[in-house]
């Protein structure tokens, strides 16, 4: 356990080292936040109450999205490139005979990274957004705690998805295609481009049940106090359920992959 805590702390420190990259990320998130906020304003002007949100809630949704983009790894978990490269080059063989579990090791790295991203890349765009626009902020202080729990669960689900993606490299060698598909699903089905509550009919119903909803839509709804009290239990169960299922799938795939590992190179 202490080992994994140390790995997580290392993940945090590693990303904290790249200050320019963090500043650049904050800048980009903020620019996108502004662009999206204006498009949402045009949309909610035409259709007030769309998707069950009023204008202030829709705008808050935009900035929550920008804050969680890096934290919940919507466009990449930050580790899958490295892990796939290790499979491709054969370095993975070294990892496999280390006295640590592959999945837990990378989960710790991802948790450390997300913790930094939330502080480093999440807080600043959210604060700028709140200054520039009239955002709906939680009325009850406890909502902040509930939100953080939901984000933490989202981080685990995100990791589980990206771990599966990374393991595909054992079979495909070049995982770029799978990464792209995962990246797509991550941006579209998480509600990053448009809240899932705005999606029409069956598309919306399916999208709200997929694992990606855990990454943004669900935490955002917790933040906006759309899910409170006992509903929160169901919400957490939904996220934790996906986390367990996907982590278990990762375990199985890892077992199969290591049995057929062929190290390249000579």
């Amino acid at each position, binding site marked *: 356990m202490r080992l994994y805590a140390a790995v997580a702390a290392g993940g945090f420190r590693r990303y904290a080292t790249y200050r320019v990259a963090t500043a650049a990320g904050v800048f980009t998130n903020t*620019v*996108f936040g502004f662009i999206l906020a204006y*498009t949402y304003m045009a*949309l909610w002007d035409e259709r007030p109450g769309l998707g069950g949100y009023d204008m202030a809630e829709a705008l808050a949704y935009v900035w929550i999205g920008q804050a969680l983009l890096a934290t919940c790894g919507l466009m990449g978990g930050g580790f899958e490139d490295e892990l796939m490269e290790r499979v491709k080059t054969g370095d993975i063989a070294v990892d496999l005979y280390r006295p640590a579990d592959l999945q837990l090791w990378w989960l710790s790295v991802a948790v450390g990274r997300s913790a930094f991203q939330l502080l480093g890349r999440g807080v600043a765009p959210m604060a700028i957004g709140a200054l520039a626009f009239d955002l709906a902020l939680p009325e009850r202080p406890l909502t902040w705690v509930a939100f953080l729990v939901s984000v933490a669960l989202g981080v685990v689900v995100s990791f589980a998805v990206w771990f599966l993606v990374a393991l595909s490299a054992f079979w495909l060698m070049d995982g770029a*295609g*799978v990464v*792209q598909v995962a*990246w797509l699903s991550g941006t579209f089905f998480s509600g990053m481009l448009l809240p899932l509550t705005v999606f029409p009919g069956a598309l919306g119903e399916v999208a709200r049940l997929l694992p990606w909803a855990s990454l943004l839509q669900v935490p955002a709804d917790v933040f906006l106090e759309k899910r409170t009290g006992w509903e929160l239990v169901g919400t957490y169960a939904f996220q934790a359920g996906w986390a367990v299922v996907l982590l278990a799938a990762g375990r199985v795939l890892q077992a199969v992959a290591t049995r057929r590992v062929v190290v390249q190179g000579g």
Partner: protein
Amino acid sequence: MGAGLRAYGLIAAMWVRSTMTYRFSFAMTLLSNFTATGFDFVVILLMFGQVDGLGGFSFAEVAFLYGTTGTAFGLADLSLGQVQRLGRRVRDGTLDTLLVRPVPVLAQVAADRFALRRLGRVTQGLAVLVWSLVLLDVAWTPAKVVLVPVTVLSGWLIFSAVMVVGAAFQFWAQDGSEVANAFTYGGNTLLQYPPVIFAQDLVRGVVYVVPLAFVNWVPALYVLGRQAPGGLPGWAAFVSPVVAAVFWVVAGLAWRAGIRSYRSTGS
């Protein structure tokens, strides 16, 4: 210039052959590149499923804005998108290898790992553009007809110049590739929507400070018979190629300054 283009072509062709080794992966990336950018448009479709107009612009008009900027950005991303990887080369010092070869560095960096899958974005942008042209109810004049391809080509040049400036910036800020994204991907997203929905200060900034508006807003609004953004006169619709040329002069100077300041990594 000629030698640079030739080298670019050779290196790009080499990467295309290399990509084709992993055919399944290539097919997947091409398809997902097409759909990835498609999802972008699905969002606009979903929006118009809920409303009849955005800021007084109809679906066909927004699709026209989307198609013009999408195609221009797709072409720039295909031809020069790889330059944003420069920061990595500066960090680990592998840029040195490129400097000793008798080929312009920009051509090498731009063609490095040339990604043919990015054709997906171009195709998707073009498809929307054609669709919008079918739907649009515009009184076409010869000038307006000529303006459509000119818009796409100038937009291509403007976006590519922005990418080169972004790459040059990485000579100083090696981890700063995301800043360029704000202008390239961010600009592309911004230009998909009509300027009237944005704060007018933001629009003026895009017209006069970083003139991305010339990618499509200025000429496209002329084609659509609407008022130019940021209080520009009507003839401004035709100066996009000039703006593109100015962009490239700036990009060339920035690139030169960047490469001159390059110091390899010490150990």
